[in-house]
């Protein structure tokens, strides 16, 4: 049981870290990219834009909290 908990805790820390908004934003961006591509719309730009925006928002929130 201890190992299962340690395993799950590791993956939670790995994916969520100290800011859950990064993981959620990227997951949403990937889902939208997939959907746009299925709709035959060029979507290569979406994930880089989402990554840059997510980083900016996360930095701003951290700077405000300091």
């Amino acid at each position: 049981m201890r190992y299962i908990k340690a395993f799950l805790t590791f993956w939670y820390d790995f994916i969520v870290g100290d800011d859950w908004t990064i993981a959620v934003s990227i997951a949403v961006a990937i889902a939208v990219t997939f959907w746009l591509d299925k709709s035959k719309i060029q979507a290569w730009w979406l994930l880089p834009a989402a990554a840059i925006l997510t980083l900016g928002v996360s930095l701003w929130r951290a700077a405000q909290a300091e």
Partner: protein
Amino acid sequence: MSGMFPILATFLAASIEGTEMVAILVGVGATRGWRSTLLGAAAGFAILAGLTFALGTALLNLPIEWLRLAVGALLLILGLQWLKKALLRIARPSARRQAAARSQMALQPESLKKIDWYAFVVAFKGVLLEGLEIAFIVVTFGAETNQVGSAVIGAVTALVVIGGIAFLIRGWLSRIPREWLRFAVGLLLAAFGTFWAAEGALVRWPGGDLALLGLLGVMTATAFAYLALLRHNARLNHKRSLI
């Protein structure tokens, strides 16, 4: 001459994939510790060898897009987290940064008993994904020219050359300040992660693999812009605290 073509072709193609793999391993090894990184890489190679021997040409039927999506997404998330932490540390006033660096140095020595699972997992995923792509290259070229052995020689030579270069530069990397190393590795992981995750979502990048260089360029420029804003903000806060 006919035997040279698959060797050269797989050497060149494997060099690109191998450089991506080694860049991740060297970056993670230099920031998190070599033991756990190399253990993760070894585990990745072991799984890869097992898959290759077990499946042979059926390897080409593996759903690599799903693996790219999963690995890419995780690397992108991790890369953004590392980049964020590195930028916040670098932007701090120098006195606070030096104090933080001293406290980090006190915790530095990599434990011989405990594994750094972050380093292990990132190394494992990088080796598995890039290794599978190299295996695809070998199987494809080898099957088309009916010279699988020559294709294997080309791929292995590429890995040995790139691995050798990485081994030579690892000492130089250890002299770079830790925050800047984390900054560079965060950028690499974020760029690779974005590239692979989008490919996994069936996106076709304009310019193919060259788009990765464009991604690195744009993300680097953005990271430095954010750093300038953070430093400006830190200076303003410092001035306000003096009033």
